[in-house]
């Protein structure tokens, strides 16, 4: 049954090759939205820590999963062949934005695993900035 699941999962959810500039752009926006979701998740998690009523194991798990998700989305996008030169620019932009986001998410994960709640809270503005940039990209490139 696990094999059947993998087959269904691939049939309905695998990242396909790009069918043109517009399709590539669509996938770029979907990737940034995915990464933004992870960034915003961690932003909310940090907000609970800032209020001093946090629970370490829960925060650690939420942040790790968000980082894993963002990383998977970025890696999946990198495997798509850009169809032309315009797409190369889009790819560079997405790479830059997702890398920035992944850096902040990694810092958040390191901070919470060290029990450094103060350090985690300090990342709040970086998370907001990374999320906003991803959102702006999505709005400007939406096709």
């Amino acid at each position, binding site marked *: *049954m696990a094999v059947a699941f993998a087959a269904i999962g691939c049939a309905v959810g695998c990242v396909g090759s790009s069918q043109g500039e517009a399709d590539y752009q669509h996938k770029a926006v979907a990737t940034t939205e995915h990464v933004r979701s992870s960034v915003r998740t961690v932003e909310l998690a940090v907000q*609970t820590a800032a209020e001093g*009523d946090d629970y370490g194991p*829960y925060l650690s798990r939420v942040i790790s999963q968000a980082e894993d998700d963002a990383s998977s989305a970025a890696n999946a996008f990198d495997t798509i062949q850009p169809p032309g030169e315009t797409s190369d620019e889009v790819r560079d932009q997405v790479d830059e934005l997702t890398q920035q986001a992944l850096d902040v998410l990694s810092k958040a994960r390191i901070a919470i695993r060290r029990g450094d709640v103060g350090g985690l809270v300090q990342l709040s503005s970086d998370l907001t900035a990374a999320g906003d940039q991803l959102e702006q990209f999505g709005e400007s490139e*939406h096709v």
Partner: protein
Amino acid sequence: MKKLFAVTLGILTAIGGFVDIGDIVANAAVGARYRWALAWVVVVGIIGIVLFAEMAGRVAAVSGRAVFDLIRERLGPRFALANLIGSFFVNLLTLTAEIAGVALALELATDVNYLLWLPVCALAVWLVIWRVKFETLEDVFGLLGLAMMVIAVTVWRAGPDWGSIFHEASHPTLPPGEGLPTYFYYAIALFGAAMTPYEVFFFSSGAIEEHWTRSDLFVNRANVYIGFPLGGLLSLALMSAAALFLNPVGITVEHLGQVALPTTLVLGRTGLAVLLVGFFAATFGAALETALSSGYTVAQYFGWQWGKFVRPLQAARFHTVVLAAVIVGAIIGLSSVDPIKVTEYSLIFSAVALPLTYFPILVVANDVGYMGDKVNSRLTNALGTVYLVIVVVAAAAAIPLMFATKAGA
């Protein structure tokens, strides 16, 4: 007084036991994506499960026999076998999702990977089924499941604009950039979450386990007409919490931890602790129900001795099926498939398999030979027919929509 206590306890356990991993994931995912634009599906689903469970409970109480026993006798062994295969597959999928759900709840509480918890959870599920009395396990996990009420408290404490929520729910519109196929894909997932077949196998077999008779029809109605709708409110609360806190910042629900964020923000560590207990109880209780349902369906079809009201040695084949289902569920869960995806697929396949059990129950509930003067009323039949159309349409559309929308991507 004793009767009142039993009815109250039944209602409370019906509320606490209503929500499972499918409801948690589907309602939160839909709330984060569509806000209240699919709230109407929850209402349709709750009316459907009330209708379905009331018929199944009444059939069990009046005839003294459970669903699969009657399906085989009334509709013949071939139809019943096809029914058994489909229902067992969906049940196994749901069991996998529930065991993984217990492990995910423990993962959030401990930060230990859910794959390490999964075998422990599977063993605990089997041990509880093996050792604990039916009434005890039903009451304990049903009552513990009431901890999920903390989600409703979260929404209430957030102080939303109720008028605007009602307006959004009663005037559903598609968010920008969303297509109708994806909207209906999620509608079917939500419908599948509310009307999961195992709930009815468990409810009707549970009635036999508790030796219901005609005199217990009042308990049946109280559980179903009061307990289930109140349990359904928890589904709406899950949707609302996600709509209020996750949707505005563009969060897509992919993990159980994200579902807990609104409660953590509003009620802090205490709220989170209560919610994690609720997650654990809801998923563990549902894992027990689905594991038992696997045994119920197979044993009832083949005419074996079944149930926890007899000693395990007397129902050895029933307990073997339960154990095998738990082991297979755990193995699938351990194969590194995403547990949230398993949950989503289980909801879609639940919708596909629903007519297989809904239709026979509707037939038997109208059969004077089994039901005597307790056959369906005209109103129940009218509603039952409308829902037959709904479940058939949902079942037919589920798989094409799953492929067309890449599982709601």
